């Protein structure tokens, strides 16, 4: 109850006039940052960090964390409208969000995404409010073996269900792993598959590949069928918000599942990216509408968005209480805390009560403000679909090029983006699925690193992956999910036999 009291004081602090202004400003900036691929949450926060040095820490963190919320919201917009994820965690949102937009349901998809984000974030904040110290220490139990198990779980929950040729799913996954391996190996410092090139030394950045594979290739696919966008006849009315909300209770189970996945991945620093893929994979597997996923199913938007935001928010918990950032943006905020003279860590909750609870209160309010602001922009963004193709397509391509460039300030990356655009176009037409490649690219090197660190520590003993209850549960859970398809097929067949006999 002491927490609740402290939270109320926090609300008082956060609700002061200038803090609300900072909140709105932050959310707006965050949306801009999230919409433009490559600018991204971490950059947005990092760029504004020096401007906040003169402010009092509570206002500063309210401004910066509002940018974070805004960026989380904004990432969904380009994913849905143009198949270009502004942030890595919105990739899974494109799988169903973009088909919805093509069907003229952009408004519905955007509303679903924003609302799901809000629900996820609120779950995350509730977690922080209620059980902060308890959950934080759980994160400490994660060593390399446990991290590997979490990544394995993500892979297993996502793959093995596609309708495509199994060989092509496998190839796509392998390409992702191999692309992730290019560049300097973090454990040995060796260069891998760079063939002496200075540019390849940096490796393939996830966003460059995704902007090409999804965004540029989509434009190529579009022009093949004539020079205009599909779904441009979208009806744009504010009532679409209410209509979409009316559907939400039907997907209650998906929302709860994604919240749980997200909070868990946020606290155990698995992160928002892994959470969004896992949320999507689990929803596809366990939902009645599973077979429609990928064709414009609203649950396919709700699931990853809820999970990503629950994770993105919960990720601030290990940052505040342990001083370990759960995400790149959290890492920048962490740097900010230190610059303002606050020491993140177990003592922050004791020494800087006002600050911590002001921040937590601003999480509730910032997300609420964010939701209202983004919902108001739904018609605006949906209207973009009506602008003539000849004007929007070069704009999208310019934004893609800028995004690809800003990631590493390299023109080579713009060429890579173009190359991956062609690869994406050819692969889509030949039915090579792109999602497994993207998943392996974003998590492959982390999984490999965790695996090698675990093996290095154990002296090559594979037993480390069954060394304690936590890691063995995770591994068993992962393998069950991997084999779920064949198992349920088998059971259905057996049942079918029994029924016919």
């Amino acid at each position, binding site marked *: 109850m002491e927490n609740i009291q402290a939270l109320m004081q926090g609300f008082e602090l956060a609700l002061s006039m200038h803090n609300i202004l900072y909140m709105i400003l932050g959310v707006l900036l965050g949306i801009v940052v999230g919409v433009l691929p490559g600018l991204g949450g971490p950059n947005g926060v990092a760029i504004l960090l020096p401007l906040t040095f003169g402010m009092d820490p509570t206002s500063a963190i309210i401004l910066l964390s509002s940018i974070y919320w805004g960026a989380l919201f904004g990432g969904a917009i380009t994913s849905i409208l143009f198949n270009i994820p502004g942030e890595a965690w919105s990739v899974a949102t494109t799988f169903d969000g973009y088909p919805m937009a093509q069907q003229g349901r952009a408004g519905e998809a955007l509303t679903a995404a924003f609302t799901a984000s809000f629900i996820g974030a609120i779950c995350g904040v509730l977690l922080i409010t209620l059980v902060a110290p308890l959950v934080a220490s759980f*994160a400490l139990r994660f060593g390399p073996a446990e991290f590997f198990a979490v990544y394995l779980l993500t892979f297993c929950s996502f793959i093995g269900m596609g309708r495509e040729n199994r060989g092509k799913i496998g190839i796509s996954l392998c390409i992702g792993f191999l692309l992730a391996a290019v560049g*300097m190996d973090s454990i040995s410092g060796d260069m891998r598959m760079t063939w002496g090139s200075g540019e390849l030394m940096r490796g393939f950045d996830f966003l460059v590949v995704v902007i090409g594979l999804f965004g540029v290739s989509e434009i190529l696919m579009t022009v093949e069928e004539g020079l205009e966008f599909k779904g441009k006849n979208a009806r744009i009315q504010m009532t679409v918000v209410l209509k979409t909300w009316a559907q939400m209770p039907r997907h209650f189970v998906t929302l709860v599942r994604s919240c749980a996945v997200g909070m868990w991945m946020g606290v155990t620093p698995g992160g928002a990216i892994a959470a969004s893929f896992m949320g999507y994979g689990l929803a596809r597997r366990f939902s009645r509408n599973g077979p429609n996923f990928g064709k414009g199913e609203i649950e396919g938007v709700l699931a990853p968005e809820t999970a990503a935001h629950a994770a993105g928010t919960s990720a601030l918990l290990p940052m505040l209480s342990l001083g370990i950032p759960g995400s790149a943006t959290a890492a920048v905020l962490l740097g900010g805390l230190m610059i303002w003279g606050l020491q993140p860590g177990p003592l922050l909750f004791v020494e800087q009560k006002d600050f911590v609870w002001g921040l937590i209160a601003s999480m509730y309010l910032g997300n609420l403000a964010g939701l209202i602001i983004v919902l108001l922009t739904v018609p605006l963004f949906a209207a973009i679909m009506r602008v003539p193709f000849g004007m929007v397509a070069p704009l999208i391509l310019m934004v893609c090029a800028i995004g690809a460039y800003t990631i590493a300030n390299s023109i080579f990356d713009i060429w890579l983006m173009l190359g991956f655009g062609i690869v994406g176009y050819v692969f889509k037409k030949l039915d090579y699925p792109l999602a497994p490649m993207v998943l392996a690219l974003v998590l492959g090197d982390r999984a490999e690193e965790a695996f090698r660190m675990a093996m290095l520590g154990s002296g090559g003993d594979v037993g480390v992956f069954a060394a304690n209850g936590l890691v063995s549960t995770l591994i068993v859970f992962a393998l069950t999910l991997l084999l779920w398809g064949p198992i349920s097929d088998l059971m259905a067949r057996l049942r079918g036999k029994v029924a016919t006999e």
Partner: protein
Amino acid sequence: MFRPAIALVALASGIGPAMAWEPTRPIEIVVPFSPGGASDQMARTIQGIIQKNGFTKAPIVVVNKPAAAGAEAMMEIKGAEGDPQKLLTTSTGVFLTPMTTKLDLAWTDYTPVAMLAEDAFALWVNAGAPYQSAQDFVEAAKASGAPLKVGGTGSKREDQLIALGVNKAAGINTIYIPHTGGGQASTQLAGQHLDATTNNPAEEVANWRGGATRPLCVFSAEALPYTEKVTEDESWHDIPTCASQGLDVQYQMLRGIFLPGGVTSEQQAYYVDLFTKVSETDEWKEYLERSALLPEFRSGEDFVTYLQGEEEKHRAMLSDAGFLVQ
């Protein structure tokens, strides 16, 4: 021991008055690590100080180029020869990267501006560990069946060199486990997935204050100068040196600023003056104390001599470890 005052005298009498050049376009500070890390914090602190005090009219931009353990940033600055609007924040990586990779780089490709500080390293263990001194740790490592696990940042870099130095000096055999950042290693230590880390003070201070980890000794010649209490009863100054505990390993890492090669001496002098001003501000001193960085300001000839000495030292260390490529 060098004192900042001498640098000022040198500056005032030598290159100071010849200053005519001024930046006209935005100054880019290229950070070879990701946002949030120690180098990034330093760059953004400098950015904040310069902007707040109006030391220069041109805007300052921080750009992160974290790929390939900083090699990418070094390649970029090497490619920007003659461009006086680009600065590189660097650490000992300025020697380590060229020597441990096949990349065509050398610190002499860059124009040294100033060394801003030195970063210490300490031997950290979990707060619940039985070791009270470096000697306890060494004995435990000798007695242990499986080798103890020591964590640090990166591969073939400062932390690993220290870990190998400890192995050699004490005649023990620990395994070094590379992490992507000091914070990650610190958390793994707090969760008892590691037996020790060789982190910088700033990377471990949160967990030390939180009672999750504690230092056994610092790998410096003298105890750290900061006497203000960090935890309830200990200050940085209270940590004994490793040498005093019979573990004779010493290592400190430079943190400094370089310009690309081929800039004029007026341009170099402008930045020397700029960073001298930065290093005299109270904000900078607070930053140093908070991060437990040692105030070692060097510029000009003095910095170059220092760099030459360090290069030789690192060449010997890397050659001992078998990491030397060039």
